[in-house]
């Protein structure tokens, strides 16, 4: 009986820092999610644009950011950007790092949505005399946006999990809270970890379910 009350006490004790961490994780997800979405759409637009240098830039940008670990991206934001005169606190720098890291994945998701639109659609639009902007804006994009949602949600799920890395850069998000709680409560380590896992799952599982539901809907439409 004693063991159970101890465990419950410990869980109640860590709840405040967990909630604080959870809110910071949500804030990181929100800021980086919106930022990465805007940046990612821009990058995707650059990659399909008729201007070669923009295409090259977007490709190089994607290749670099996709091929270095998030840890290094955040390291860059936390320690190198301040040298360049960016004076933000670690939370915003971490959000910026997550934005940069996630944007190429958003761009790829958007592109894969474009991929799903049958070629005939673009050909038909072109053959009735529409230009690049019209073809993309009026024909491809409305169809692609539907296909883009599931992979995009998957990117945001990954982002949710990636926010945990920000804990290494002085942001007290959920993982940092977990690590310190696990250190302080040696006897109920499993519970502290499962508690944290449940909080992460509370974000990722609903997102996954939404993605699945939309995917099914899109499937019927096609």
């Amino acid at each position, binding site marked *: 009986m004693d063991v159970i009350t101890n465990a419950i006490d410990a869980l109640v004790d860590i709840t405040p820092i967990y909630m604080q961490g959870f809110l910071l994780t949500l804030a990181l997800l929100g800021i980086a999610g919106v930022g990465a979405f805007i940046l990612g759409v821009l990058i995707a637009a650059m990659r*399909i644009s*008729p*201007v*070669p*240098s*923009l295409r090259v*830039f977007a490709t190089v940008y994607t*290749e*670099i950011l*996709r*091929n*270095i*670990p*998030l*840890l*290094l991206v955040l*390291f860059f934001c936390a*320690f*190198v950007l301040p*040298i360049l005169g960016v004076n933000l606190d670690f939370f915003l720098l971490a959000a910026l790092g997550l934005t940069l890291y996630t944007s190429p994945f958003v761009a*790829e*998701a958007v*592109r*894969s949505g*474009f*991929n*799903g639109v*049958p*070629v*005939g659609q*673009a*050909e038909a639009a072109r053959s009735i005399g529409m230009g*690049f902007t019209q*073809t*993309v804006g009026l024909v*491809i994009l409305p169809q692609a946006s539907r*296909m883009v949602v*599931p*992979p995009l949600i998957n990117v945001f799920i990954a982002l*949710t*999990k*990636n*926010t*945990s*890395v920000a*804990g*290494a850069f002085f942001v007290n998000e959920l993982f940092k809270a*977990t690590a310190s709680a*696990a250190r302080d409560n040696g006897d109920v*380590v*499993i519970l502290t*970890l499962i508690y944290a*896992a449940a909080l*992460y*799952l509370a974000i990722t*599982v609903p997102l*996954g379910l939404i993605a699945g539901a939309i*995917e099914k809907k899109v*499937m019927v439409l*096609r």
Partner: protein
Amino acid sequence: MSTSILYDAPGPKTKRNSTIASVISALAILALLVWVYFILAAPRVSANGAEQPGLFDPSRTDILSDPEVWGAFGRGVLNTLRMAGVAAVLAIIVGILFSFGRTAASKWVRIPTSILLEFFRGIPLLLLIFFVFLLFSTGSYWAGVLGLAIYNGAIIGEALRAGISSLPKGQREGGLSVGLTSLQTRFIIEFPQAFRQMLPIILAQLVVLLKDTSLAYVVAYPELSRIIKELQNFYGSRYLFTLFAVGLVIYLVMNVSLSYIARYIAKRSGPKLGDITPDKPKAPGAEGTRAITIPRGSRSYGEAGNTGW
């Protein structure tokens, strides 16, 4: 690249405009890089008034001539590869097991597997590595390997399952009708096709796995990024930027070459992919969309429509 379906083949005027736009944006990007370079190279005055040399100053890069530094980098790379290699093999095995569990006929296997999969896919890898480390006291190397293997295995398992369910129904029916058992059909008819179809996704995931070894820092495993941190602690923080830059280049070289190999393999097994997907749009001029699209990653969504019939 030259023939995108989205716009006309450029005429002389558009070509000129496009070249001008290209040159201008290239110059703008170049100017930005030069500006960043000069800011980084300029000596800085810190808060207490002391002047520090610029980031490309010899006093900041002289450790690069020290063979011990390169030895440390080499150890870091080796440790990273050692972890990634074992984890990759295990991840594929775990993925195969997961995909079989997920598609099993008995719901007593299927439902627990699904719950486990959701759990492993839904929590951060960092937490998973930490989990393994604290719960099984495996030591840092195996905590990293097992964490990576389970996490990526869950993702590969999902990809394989999607591959199996996107196969035409006739494949399974054909297998069953020639007298194979359900399990045999899965093993020798469906699984090889699904594996080949999902190869690009699996390989892309292995690149992610290589990157994610850096998260083993949480259990103090001495892989590349941890080594960078340790070198910086040892030699002093004025080498921070130099060490960071070297680490960045090493990671880029490792991952880009692996991505390249992955893409090459994916392309080689490419032609076989098309045959098993009957309703793939094969409109004339389909190759024209290459400029706006990539084959990678799109597959699971593009062909998900097969499951219905």
